[in-house]
């Protein structure tokens, strides 16, 4: 049976309207509702299903971020993950943390925990990088199967169906492997209340980047974060009939 590691990032909930900080150096996060990155939720679900099918023996969820990152680890635990590892990154440092930093940390944990399969979301909805899975595979020098929409585990390998432009690609990779989850891989479950309660007692180990031997010093400087240009009020109307109806509704034509 395989040992599985999943990455869970805490991001601003996708139903929340994003606001830019007054100094334009980032987005406002204080008092803003966060949740688990939706693609990571899919990764967790896949791992839990593997465990239910007795393909996986243990699932470890890792989150790199400030103290509140533990919230999404708890969510993963409630969904069925066995234990959590929180890589504590101070909020200020987190702003300039990049996929390269994260993949080095994940790679180290993957080795320490002797995992066979790493499943990450294909991208996080806040920075949309789509790099962490690929870089983690590179750091570990393991095969990678990105944008997975189906995963079938064999004895010493996995067969992964990938969503590519205009179709599907099926590839086979030797274990250990890094996989990134696409939208259609599965539909994540709702954690049930008894499991939410139980998750409170499951262990979360706290480590620092230093413990993992990773330097998280900023490699970028955020120059400016801007709102997308505001679309002027107006709608696209499908046909002339609708246009006429709208004009009449507004009392602009008889």
């Amino acid at each position, binding site marked *: 049976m395989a040992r599985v590691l999943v990455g869970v990032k805490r991001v601003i*909930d*996708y*139903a929340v309207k994003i606001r830019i900080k007054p100094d334009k150096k980032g987005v406002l996060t204080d008092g803003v509702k*966060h949740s688990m990155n939706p693609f990571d939720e899919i990764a967790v679900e896949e791992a839990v299903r593997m465990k239910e099918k007795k393909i996986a023996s243990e699932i470890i969820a890792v989150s790199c971020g400030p103290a509140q990152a533990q919230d999404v680890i708890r969510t993963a635990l409630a969904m069925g993950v066995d234990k959590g590892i929180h890589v504590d990154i101070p909020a200020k440092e987190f702003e300039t943390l990049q996929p390269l930093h994260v993949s080095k940390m994940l790679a180290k944990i993957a080795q320490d925990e002797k995992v066979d399969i790493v499943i990450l979301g294909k991208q996080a909805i806040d920075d949309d990088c789509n790099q962490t899975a690929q870089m983690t595979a590179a750091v570990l020098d393991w095969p990678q199967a990105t944008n997975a929409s189906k995963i079938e585990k064999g004895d010493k390998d996995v067969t992964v169906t990938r969503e590519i432009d205009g179709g599907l690609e099926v590839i086979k990779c030797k274990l250990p492997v890094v996989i990134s989850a696409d939208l259609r891989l599965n539909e994540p479950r*709702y954690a*049930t209340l*008894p499991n939410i309660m139980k998750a409170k007692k499951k262990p979360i180990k706290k480590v620092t980047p230093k413990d993992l031997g990773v330097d998280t010093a900023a490699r970028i400087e955020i120059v400016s974060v801007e709102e997308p240009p505001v679309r002027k009020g107006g709608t696209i109307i499908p046909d002339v009939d609708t246009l006429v109806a709208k004009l009449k509704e507004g*009392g*602009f034509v*008889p």
Partner: protein
Amino acid sequence: MNTALFDCKATIIMHGIMFLRKTNRVGCRVENIGFLSDTTQKFPVERGEFNKLNNGHKGFFRQLLGDYRVITDNHDLVKYNNDWFGYVKGCSQIVLKPKTTEEVSQILSFCNENRLAICLQGGNTDVVGASVPVFDEIVVSTELMNEIIDLDENSGVIICQAGCVLENIDKKLEGSGLMVPLDLGAKGSCHIGGNVATNAGGLRLLRYGNLHGNVLGLEVVKANGEVIDCLSTLKKDNTGFHLKHLFIGSEGTLGFITKVSLQCPPRARSINVAFLGLQNFDKVLKTFRKAKEDLCEILSAFEVIDSTSMEFAKETVGITSPIGDYPYYLLIETSGSNPEHDADKLYKFLDLVLVKHLALNGTLATEPAKVNAIWAIREKIPEGFKHSSVLCYDFSLPLSKYFDLVEDMRNHMGSLAKKVFGFGHLGDGNLHLQIEVNEMSKEVRDHVEPNVFERVKQMNGSISAEHGMGFLKANYLSFANPPSKVEMMRNLKSMLDPKGILNPYKVFPWTYS
């Protein structure tokens, strides 16, 4: 009303028609047939003694509003003659779109003098046929009365014209950290004037109370054009009778609401939703009492769904329970200002509910996207009505008997019904009862009504909890109310609208042709 039972039957047939899968949407044959609308072909209703619209009248309206705000084109009239669900359909030949109170006043005074009947219309989302003409009544729409007049952030009071769309008012308030105190599925279309006129309830009545409490003032135009200024913005104002209450829930029969002043609570910063599965209704009630005690001031919605409703939703709109199958489901929402405080309370409550075996299972959403997803389970059930043949009812019932009615009706229907199911605003004692049938027939409808209303009455319930009487239930007025109350209603009507031009055939029983 003299022949209550006969009246009931006539209305019932209508009721059934409204839920047939395809409704007849053929254009109104106004030109040749005169006053014959779709509605009047289905219902034996007699036209009141009103004058017929002539070119002189049209000329007056055009002079007052200009050509653009007087609609007479047959094609353009369709939207105003048909109601939301396609139950009823009038054949008005004219729609007027005033922008100001002054214009409304002139229209009403002219119609009153000329004995022309009026149908008052807001967003036209009414579900009892109150918002569309029955015959050829002149439609006066609040569509262009959509200005927000003032917002006092300190007292949390907004004043707006009656035609403001509920959701637009809410968006305006969001910037000030406030919200509208009512929320309902039709919020993107319904107007605040229409909400007030129907005394709309909705999803958060449990928390914020009904519009009698939240409406601080109204400006209303009487049938004769006189403007009554009750547009107070004060929470306390005992300087005489509280006349605004007369118009809240009057369904357009006593006056034309032109402005509304509304009290708006602070917008909740923390919203959580729990979804629970329960074994029986006794446990549902126990959980409700516990929720009121333990969640107290943060409890903002308490909705119930029975297992048959969930089966129906699965078959028709593909919604499934996120926690497996149970006899009853509860959706419990909390809203407050402090996420940690609310979570703490909610976890303690949920822990207890599980430990005491009140709930068998459940899930919890604390993040906006998940909160919306859980709410969608409850809000999508009615969408299924469009994919099947369903008779729908809106009752208030004492809580102890809330689901007895569903069981009673299931037994009563036997094999005549495919499914009998209930869901609704349990926190307010408001049950939506549905009867799904293979095919809508007179046999089925006669079997349901008036029987179901009599049962509700025996249980000391109300046959219309939040939708009103409108046209479809008007003939039950005397069935639902004691004679003394109906008499006083009639007196008020004849005092405020002696010629009966405002929304005829609505609320008060109509005469048979």
